């Protein structure tokens, strides 16, 4: 795979590389201190480097093109999704005839055809289908994801791959840097993460906007917005009337049509205006607006950081770029700080503050883990080692039989469950590939006050 191409038009001396070679083979006043101008830099990009791109959507398509034309010769791309019509306004490697096909495979085929100096290997899979041994083979990982859970999972994976020396320092060879991009409408961000060294995804969880949830009583009794009417049909009428005998599918136009009609009826009943087909679809599918331009900008910023890190030609950005072009063009780069209390990267058990163990139920704890900005878990499973040394599952929702067996624990207090101050809970959640350890800290409120 690392054998240089026999075709001179594709070799390192091809004139196609003239521009990149000026950057990589000349010293300059702003280059990184340890940069060595040499022909080896391009050779490394073309024949030795291996970069993984996660996501072949709006950012992923751009990243593949950008990295291929920045000299990278060996790229892998993972995406579990297939191509839809509404992707075509920005995911420029796909055409109408590709609808229904794998994004990863289609994108790889296009780049391999257009840029003969780059070989893209597609993986039509979920990131969770791969383990450590897969992720370890890459020099760098770039993420162009629209899911926060997936970002947190890969962040957890890269952190779990870190090896620590006896003195607690990190073995540098175990670090796989992560460059992460995200966009929403005319806003976006790009960041550089050195797992274990700089702020990770979990350190800055509070940067993600909270999801909008309308209170159920508003939806049911006092609707005021068209969105309230749509939510009512989705949450209550759909199950009650079961119009097609199947669960709601946001991609089925018949389903959306039915919801549109019912929502319109409800809105008319309450004199609420503003129900449109597009609004209904947006609410049902949680659609985030997206344009080609923002994806191009953020992917380019990520690709530049991959290039800087892979070649050492310039210092990496430190470490978080915000972009928006609603009013002019605005960028702001700052150093997001590593959190000492980070569940994922602090490498020590984190305290879980509990007020009164006799009134706090297990359900309260799970609610805290899901709702507090610090944790934001999805469906945590809790196990612990009891005083007698026995492993005990406190609650797990993902396996039906265990859920049934542990459901009764939910309403019990921590005291009733026999959990002691200082006891460690092992928590697993879809947001992380590895378990995390939380240490119960009772009377937390009193401690704070003293």
């Amino acid at each position: 795979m690392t054998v240089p191409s026999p075709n001179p038009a594709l070799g390192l001396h091809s004139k196609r590389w003239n521009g990149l070679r000026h950057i990589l083979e000349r010293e300059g006043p702003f280059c990184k201190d340890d940069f060595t101008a040499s022909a080896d830099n391009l050779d490394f990009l073309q024949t030795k480097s291996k970069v993984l791109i996660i996501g072949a959507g709006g950012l992923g398509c751009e990243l593949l093109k950008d990295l291929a034309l920045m000299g990278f010769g060996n790229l892998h791309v993972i995406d579990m999704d297939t191509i839809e019509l509404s992707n075509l306004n920005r995911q420029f490697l796909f055409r109408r005839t590709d609808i229904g096909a794998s994004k990863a495979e289609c994108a790889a085929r296009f780049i391999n055809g257009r840029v003969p100096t780059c070989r893209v290997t597609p993986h039509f899979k979920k990131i969770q289908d791969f383990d450590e041994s897969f992720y370890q083979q890459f020099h760098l990982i770039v993420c162009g994801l629209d899911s926060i859970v997936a970002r947190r999972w890969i962040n957890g994976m890269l952190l779990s791959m870190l090896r620590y020396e006896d003195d607690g320092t990190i073995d540098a060879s175990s670090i796989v840097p992560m460059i992460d991009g995200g966009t929403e409408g005319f806003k976006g961000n790009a960041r550089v993460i050195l797992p274990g060294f700089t702020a990770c995804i979990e350190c800055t969880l509070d940067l993600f906007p909270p999801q909008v949830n309308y209170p159920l009583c508003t939806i049911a009794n006092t609707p005021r917005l068209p969105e309230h009417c749509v939510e009512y049909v989705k949450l209550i009428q759909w199950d009650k009337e079961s119009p097609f005998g199947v669960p709601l599918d946001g991609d089925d136009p018949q389903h959306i049509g039915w919801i549109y009609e019912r929502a319109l009826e409800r809105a008319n009943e309450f004199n609420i205006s503003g129900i449109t087909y597009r609004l209904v679809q947006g609410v049902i599918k949680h659609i985030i607006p997206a344009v080609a331009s923002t994806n191009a900008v953020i992917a380019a910023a990520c690709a530049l950081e991959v290039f800087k890190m892979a070649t050492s030609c310039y210092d990496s950005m430190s470490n978080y770029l915000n972009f928006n072009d609603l009013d002019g063009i605005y960028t702001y780069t700052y150093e997001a700080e590593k959190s000492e209390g980070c569940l994922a990267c602090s490498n020590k058990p984190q305290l879980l503050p509990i007020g009164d163990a006799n009134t706090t139920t297990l359900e309260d704890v799970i609610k805290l883990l899901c709702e507090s900005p610090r944790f934001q878990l999805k469906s945590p499973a809790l196990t612990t080692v009891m005083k007698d040394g026995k492993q005990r599952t406190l609650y797990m929702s993902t396996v039906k039989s265990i859920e049934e067996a542990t459901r009764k624990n939910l309403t019990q207090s921590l005291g009733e469950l026999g959990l002691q101050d200082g006891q460690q809970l092992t928590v697993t959640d879809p947001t992380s590939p590895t378990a995390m350890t939380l240490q119960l800290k009772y009377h937390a409120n009193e401690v704070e006050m003293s």
Partner: protein
Amino acid sequence: MVALERVLENAQSQYCPSDNKFTCILSAKMSSPAPKSPELSDKSKKYDRQIRLWGEHGQTLLEAATVCLVNVTAVGCETAKGLVLPGIGGFTVADGSTVKEEDLGNNFFLDASYIGKSKALACKQLLQELNPDVNGDYVDESVDYLLENRPNFFDSFDLVIASNLNEKTLLLLSNRLWESNVPLLYCRSLGMMGTIRLQIREHCIVEAHPDNPQFDLRLAQPFHALQEHLNSTEVTSKVPWLLVLYKYLRIWQKEQPDGHKTPNNYKEKNQLREVIRKEMKADEENHEEAIKAVNTAFGAGTVPSALKAIFEDEACELLTKKSNIFWIMAKALKSFLIHDNNGNLPLPGVLPDMTANTDSYIALQNIYRQQALQDADQVYHKCQDYLKQLSLPPDTIDERSVRLFCREAAGLTVMRGTRIAEEYERNSRLLPLMEENEVQDNLTAYNFALRAYERFLSECGHIPGECTAEQDIGRLKTIAGKMLGDLGTHATISDDVLHEISRYGGAELHAVSAFIGGCAAQEVIKIVTKQYKPIDNTFIYNAVSTESVTLKL
């Protein structure tokens, strides 16, 4: 060019997640029931994710626009890509050169099969393949040839995008486009540096889409219908917070010796919060919301300075038959403010969501919407009077356009641009950029260095740093010194900056071009859709430090 008013016919069906309630006003008068499940058209589905931002009416304007791409570079093609994908009406590529091997390294819209063939043709074909809705065209002539032999060539475009010009050609092209009133977006991408310069004579924006829009509620001076509603409605735990806030505002006002209308500082706002808190019972959500709203509920409705400038503009004072309808509506708005509305803006009629029972919220919402319609109606009739005076047909301006104009009154913006050629003459905007014989900051210095690079191309006929990084630094420095001297300053550009520029040897890096191209494409979309504010007027990006700045040159 499609007229704004025609396009706005679609506005009522648009949905913007951030301000869907805005659009409701436009449809408030529609009484006929919507058709059964009006599934979106194929095109509407394809462009769904962007129509949620700029609406069907923005999309219609985009699909009616045609642009010219001068010179096939990576930054030019990336800009064009960002326009072809969202469905611009058409593009024409102008480039007189042929594809060479060295062009393939950084440009995704050229490939080896085109080597030796027209670059304009190659890039036109590969760009058009992205989207069959878009008309692509090409001219395999250089910009110099076109300016010399077909000077009217550029006049029919809505905008021209250019890159990689030498100084002489840049000045010729920009002057020509200024004369023919065609906006120019000039992009530079060299090494790790990029810039975008927008040259446009006048640009009027109705929908600026502010990031944090302020709700205009008129609590200080309630309009008649609102006053009646406030007086006749009992404040309970089920009514919107606006009624709660008004009740306690009146109580608070009675305690004020100096006749304060609304609390306008931290202390006064806290006093009002306390008044509410003292009276509220536990679990009164609307009272809690009223306390939170103290900070933002007052203050809108007055004329912002940008709008004042619009009212004082000569184009607003002196309407002619050729006046943009923006100016006719602006003059009508001004007259409404002065003669009919005590200097207040027309009511936008937009209410934030407030916890309340349905009937009391909808009743309040209708009061705001009705007043907004009434205000807009008055402005509309004034527009019709002006149209009559100008002997223009009444359908030149329709009600929907006026409603939108009135709703957006607080954010109306007119941008007046400058000629690129002025940057090469002594002018007052340049001096603040210089400090103590140094160009003020690094990003500004790069902008001047890139201009020196273009003068070098004109004067020396080759690319600085083409063979070795060092050979041309001296010459580049001389040129930069003379250029700054001609502008009336003794400031210099640091040797390091010039060394860096020379080290690039003309290299255009794809990722820098993709960054600049992405930004540039959105600026074009802003201009043709007349939504969102474009840069005014020079954006400079440094990919080494990941910094950017916008200067008005």
